[in-house]
């Protein structure tokens, strides 16, 4: 028994967390399409086991040494270029790994009953599982090439999720002669944008490889980076391309334009996974790779990142105020929330980066939930147009109550999860790393603070338009079904987590804090 546990902590555990979904996906391909129930149960079982394994990993994790990479291993992968299968987790990646395995379970539960045309659970379930492998893998990879492969692995499943199950509304788009279905336009836009970023990111990785004694190992590169191995124009350029790769994914203003389209077009589970996990891959990349390996360049770029983040916050909220489409509003709110995450990161302080970490988890939970609810509402009402909605509380009391709760959490109400990320990011920006331009950061902080007010504004206005008031005539007498058991099973855990993290932020900080402090001390000496 002990030997099993030992091998489990020698990389087997997290390897299973990463690859079990992929292996299950392959098996599911061999189940005949007609046996839908078997497919669903097998997928759920696989994701539950994966989640269970990730809990065991969290249990085995040594929180006193959260700054060290643990439970990992290093195996030869591509010998001739010295790239290895090097994996491990530290306090920064652990919460995100758990978030990923957890949200995947919920997405699968939700998909039991709520798939848009052309239903096909076999396809959707296997895509979710492949996606999960990509997400989990990104969070445990400690080799740049391995990271790159997992980072890119999420593209294909998400492309097909949006493209096949996405919104079929026909609209005209600039640059296209004919009108085009939203899903087709959004899916390729998502793909092209992310690939554009990551193609350049790969060049950056190669730059680090050649300057840094031909290794792709992230821990080794961090050692090299913190001892000042990467300097000059070279390092500035490398940081620039890494920035491009990660910022597209986050997405930071002005590279965000794919996001509203992708979110609006994606089916509900697609939106949830996109918002909850995929966006985090970008911000996680900053914390895991860009900052510790290129600390000097991070300092040089920090003010620029802070300004872009602040613009993102203001722009996101203003754009939200102008939306009539419920899902598009939530998509733009993501731009704003991820702006807070990036503002926290750009401060280069332990408070700021901790804020980013809890902000990522909170955004994953809250915005994930918002997309669940809005997706279900769009399914029930057959419209996302807020001008037509109204009186939701009376029509769908359960959904309405949850929407109200989640909107409150999203606007950063103290006591709920969203509060910590925003509040501490502003705190971080008020007192950035010594040596950074304080005017820029304080201005960004003020912009962020205005952003919180605007966020409250658009969310409350959204609630007023959607939830409150009397139902419009077109809905009266219609048979609108409120949240069913599958939906509630997917949503209630998120509600509980929102409250728990809001009250005990230590759930996250207990894991991240030491790791973040060690990162900041090592890289920036502060």
């Amino acid at each position, binding site marked *: 028994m002990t030997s099993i546990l030992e091998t489990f902590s020698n990389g087997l555990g997290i390897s299973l967390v990463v690859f079990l979904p992929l292996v299950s996906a392959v098996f599911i391909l061999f189940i005949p399409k007609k046996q839908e129930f078997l497919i669903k149960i097998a997928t759920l079982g696989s994701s539950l086991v994966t989640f269970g394994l990730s809990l065991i990993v969290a249990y085995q994790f040594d929180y006193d040494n959260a700054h060290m990479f643990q439970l990992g291993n290093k195996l030869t992968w591509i010998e001739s270029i010295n790239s290895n299968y090097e994996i491990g987790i530290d306090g920064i990646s652990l919460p995100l790994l758990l978030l990923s395995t957890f949200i995947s379970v919920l997405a699968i539960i939700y998909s039991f009953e709520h798939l848009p045309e052309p239903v096909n659970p076999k396809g959707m379930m296997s895509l979710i599982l492949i996606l999960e492998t990509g997400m989990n893998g990104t969070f445990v990879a400690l080799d740049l090439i391995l990271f790159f492969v997992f980072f890119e692995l999420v593209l294909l499943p998400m492309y097909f999720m949006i493209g096949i199950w996405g919104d079929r509304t026909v609209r005209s788009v600039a640059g296209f002669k004919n009108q085009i279905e939203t899903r087709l336009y959004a899916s390729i836009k998502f793909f092209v944008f992310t690939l554009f970023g990551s193609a350049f990111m*790969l060049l950056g990785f190669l730059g680090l490889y050649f300057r840094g004694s031909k290794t792709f190992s992230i821990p080794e590169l961090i050692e090299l980076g913190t001892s000042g191995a990467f300097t000059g124009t070279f390092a500035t350029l490398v940081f620039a391309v890494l920035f491009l790769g990660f910022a597209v994914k986050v997405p930071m203003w002005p590279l965000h334009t794919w996001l509203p389209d992708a979110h609006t077009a994606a089916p509900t589970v697609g939106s949830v996974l996109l918002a909850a996990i995929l966006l985090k891959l970008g911000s996680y990349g900053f914390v895991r790779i860009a900052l510790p390996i290129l600390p000097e360049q991070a300092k040089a770029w920090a003010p620029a990142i802070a300004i872009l983040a602040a613009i993102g916050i203001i722009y996101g909220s203003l754009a939200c105020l102008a939306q009539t489409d419920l899902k598009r509003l939530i998509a733009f709110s993501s731009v704003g929330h991820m702006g807070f995450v990036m503002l926290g990161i750009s401060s280069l302080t332990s408070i700021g980066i901790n804020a980013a970490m809890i902000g990522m988890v909170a955004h994953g939970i809250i915005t994930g939930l918002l997309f669940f609810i809005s997706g279900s509402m769009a399914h029930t009402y057959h419209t996302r147009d807020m001008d037509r909605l109204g009186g939701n509380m009376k029509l769908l009391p359960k959904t309405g109550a949850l929407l109200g709760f989640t909107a409150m959490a999203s606007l950063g109400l103290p006591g709920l999860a969203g509060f910590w990320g925003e509040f501490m990011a502003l705190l971080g920006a008020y007192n950035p790393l010594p040596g950074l331009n304080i005017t820029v950061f304080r201005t960004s902080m003020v912009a962020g603070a205005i952003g919180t007010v605007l966020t409250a504004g658009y969310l409350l206005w959204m609630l007023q338009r959607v939830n409150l008031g009397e139902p419009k005539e077109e809905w009266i007498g219609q048979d609108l079904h409120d949240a069913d058991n599958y939906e509630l099973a997917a949503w209630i855990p998120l509600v509980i987590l929102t409250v728990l993290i809001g009250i005990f932020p230590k759930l996250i900080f207990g894991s991240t804090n030491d790791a973040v402090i060690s990162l900041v001390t090592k890289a920036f000496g502060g």
Partner: protein
Amino acid sequence: MEAEISINYLAISTELIVIFTIVGTITLDLIFTKKSKYLVALFALVGSLISFIPIIFQWANYSKAMVLFDGSYVIDKFSIILKGLFILVTYLTFLLSINFVESDTYYEGEYYFLLLCSLLGALVVASSRDLLTIFIGIELASGPMFLLSGWRKGDPKSNEGAIKFFLLGVLSASLILYGFSLLYGVTGKIIFSEIVSSLSATGLHQSPVVLLSSILILAGIGFKISVVPFHSWAPDTYEGSPLPVTAYLSISSKATGFVALIILFTKVFYESGTSWGVILVLISGATMFIGNLSALQQTNPIRLLAYSSIAQAGFILAPIAVAGITGNYNDGVYASVTYLVIYAFMNMGAFLVVNILIKASGSENIYEWGGLAKDSPMTGIFSVVFFFSLAGIPPLGGWFAKFVVFRSLLSTGEIFGLSLGIIGAINAVIALVYYARVSKIIWMDDSPAGERVITVPNPLKVVGFISLALTLLAGVFPGIFSSLGEASAIFFSS
């Protein structure tokens, strides 16, 4: 001195088996009646499989390069790997051809005979180390293709393509010969190593005449590998040829050209790399851009793949170009060979998909392929794997091919490599649009009314699963392919 000719027959047993198969194929074709012609195909298939056996033994028992015919013919790891590739590709082409050739009034026996001749040429190129042998090899590889590309006699497109291919092929042959004659005129030697030592001894390796020779050869081979500006024949010829022949043209013929280019430019002209390197850099960049931008416009799947394979040629060429400038030939050969090997299988798969879908939809317009994946999910998955692999999306093999190219481009950090790297990155994104389009149409577009039944014949399934397995293997465990490239590079430049 008494000339004693002793030939190491074991070393050239692959070639001998292929020759035997060629003779056997054409003889059996005379014997068998129309009904039992499939036996000819079977014979060719088995023959090409058997010719793979010596390759395995040579690889397993490799100790050092075997030199034959006074240095004209060398069996080293580079040639073993590429011969293996050529044989496998030919084998897959045969499988792809069986139903295709049977379904029409083609001359079956001659078809296999010609393909095998072309294979023999390719095998010779991989081992040749003198001007004559390499020229014979190049022409033996491309000569039969002139005939095969015009195989659909009744089709004007096929005639047009074949004539274009033939005329340009003859032009390219004469350009190559002209280049060779200049080299011979200057040095009086035909064996590469002797040419090089003669050039360095006389200090002529940077002289205009050698440079002119390299440019002429480059132009000649440029036609074979269809890089810009020598690419214009490719889309027409590809469109007109029978589909398996097109697949062979875009994989094996192209690879043969690349092998010849790699051998000549790294063995003969390596000292003047700074001159031709710049030209190759320009050609490589232009090839990527023009290939990809043209592919974006295509509605015909075969023309789309034609332009795609032009763009891919730009990627394969890039490491050699930069190696010329930096002098780091090891890295360049490593990247190009690795790319070639992976490209061969994913491109074969892409042609297979196109083959199936054209037959299923009865249309050579990709926009009429809506929803075909629903009728045959297997073909749908094939198309996703092969087309996205060509686009270089992990975890499919193509990503590693692109990666090693980027790696060799950036290895020294000098400006040409860096610029080509950036051009390559931009092109990877452009290419994604049209590769993704095929998947988009067959997975996401609505199918037209009416039931379509897609039956995939067994030989095609075999081709599909072999290519699929190798493409996935290259993506998930690239080490295997990488070590092939590495082995060829190290032994080649020694």
